[in-house]
């Protein structure tokens, strides 16, 4: 009896508390959605940057060739090697950025999943405790 007297008031107060937690988790969920949008935008900017760098390299390659009056085999080989090395460097950087972006997206998805599970657990708690809350009113 003593136990019931102690538990019932406590349980009556738990249902609104669970709902507050759910509301907070919904805010976190919205925050994660904003973070995902922001990361998507950053990925787009980085992709555009690498595309631009590649275009600049192509233009510079052509400009050097056009500026030459005569061509020596050594110059052509050196020019081709430097161009290829620079493109390889851009590809490596782009791949690194893409891997980092994919990792960010996976982390966000894991967080979103964890929050969904928490909301689900809180909603069960809220439903179970709802009758106690109603009897209290």
């Amino acid at each position, binding site marked *: 009896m003593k136990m019931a007297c102690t538990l019932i008031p406590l349980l009556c107060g738990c249902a609104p508390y669970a709902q507050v937690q759910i509301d907070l988790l919904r805010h976190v969920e919205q925050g994660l959605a904003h973070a995902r949008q922001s990361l998507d935008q950053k990925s787009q900017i980085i992709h555009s940057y690498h595309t631009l760098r590649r275009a600049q390299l192509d*233009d*510079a*390659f052509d400009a*050097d060739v056009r*500026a030459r009056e005569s061509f020596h085999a050594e110059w052509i080989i050196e020019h081709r*090697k430097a161009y290829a*090395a*620079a493109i*390889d*460097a851009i590809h490596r950087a782009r791949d690194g950025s893409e891997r980092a972006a994919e990792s960010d997206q996976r982390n966000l998805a894991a967080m979103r999943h964890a929050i969904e599970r928490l909301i689900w657990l809180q909603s069960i708690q809220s439903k179970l405790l709802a009758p106690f809350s109603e009897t209290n009113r």
Partner: protein
Amino acid sequence: MNTIDVKAHVRQAIDSSWDQFQRYHPHLANVIDRELLAEAAAQSLGDDPQFQDAMQRSSGLGIAASTLTDLIPQLVKRFLERLF
């Protein structure tokens, strides 16, 4: 010898030959990101079987750190000659 040291040697090697490269390929030199290039070259060098072999052999023979420090620029130079 860690990756940072190798990258520093690669950067140094690129910088030392940059003026000459810039003279003959001015437009390309103007848009190439040397930092990015050094990063990529250091990564490629780390994957290079010849470089790995040299590092393993030097480590197996117990070569002193100072000798290894002398060896790295030579390996970097040889590698960059293939690259450039």
